[in-house]
């Protein structure tokens, strides 16, 4: 069975705000697959551009909201793909990242990519439901 996880706050519905043809997350087979998480204001949907660190804080806040609304949590992440705009920021990512995954961090891969709207970081994650 495949079940849509709705946006817990209106800002997190990227389809409504930006026309992306995607659900916020899908629960299937005991896992939760999240759409790429971006630094979007969870109330208004406005883009929150900033430093990689500030963008990552917003993203983890949104991810926490989304996962907890689905009965999961940041402690239940199993895999993270962290996309960053420039590999020079790898250490910066790690500093902010470890604050959110203190309890047995998930598997992770980091690579450099072009992220939408010129954001500096995006997280693509799978968690257990």
């Amino acid at each position, binding site marked *: *069975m*495949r079940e*849509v996880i709705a946006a817990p706050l209106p800002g997190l519905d990227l*389809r409504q705000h930006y*026309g*992306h*043809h*995607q*659900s*916020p*997350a*899908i629960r*299937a*087979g005991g896992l939760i*697959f*999240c*759409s*790429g998480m971006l630094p979007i204001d969870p109330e208004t949907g406005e883009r929150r551009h900033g430093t990689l660190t500030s963008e990552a804080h917003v993203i983890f806040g949104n991810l926490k909201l989304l996962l907890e609304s689905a009965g999961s949590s940041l402690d239940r992440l199993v895999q993270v*793909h962290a*996309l960053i705009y420039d590999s020079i920021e790898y250490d910066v990512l790690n500093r902010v990242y470890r604050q959110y995954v203190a309890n047995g961090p998930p598997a992770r891969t980091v690579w450099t*990519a*072009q*992220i*939408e709207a010129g954001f500096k970081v*995006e997280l*693509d994650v*799978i968690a257990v439901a």
Partner: protein
Amino acid sequence: MSPRREVIVASPLARDGASRFGRAVSTLVRGGDFLFVSGLTAVDPDSGERVRGTTASETRHILVNLKQLLEAAGSSLDKVVKVNVLLHSMLEAPNMNEVYARFFPEPPPARTVCGARLPDDAKVIIECTALV
């Protein structure tokens, strides 16, 4: 019993383009309840030849083929849970999104789109995970 892993041989084989990689890649692999689909580039389903076009036309080619591949493996577009779309430029994201929206029924799967340097001058690569 541990969940089984099964390589699914697509039919017709030309459609998946994997034969070009000398069998180093399986286009479809089942693991447990999930079907994992390799990143697809735009290929002609009959000849297996690479198709070069716009971001929109490559997206259309890929999704036509993806639909066939999923259905041949006992899945379908409405069982897809997550899609990753790689584009040669994020400026093309709206062109991809417009075509993409015509293929996936409601409610659409989760999705991540990013820009990356793609092999073989491809403009689009799409990979996904589906339920079987």
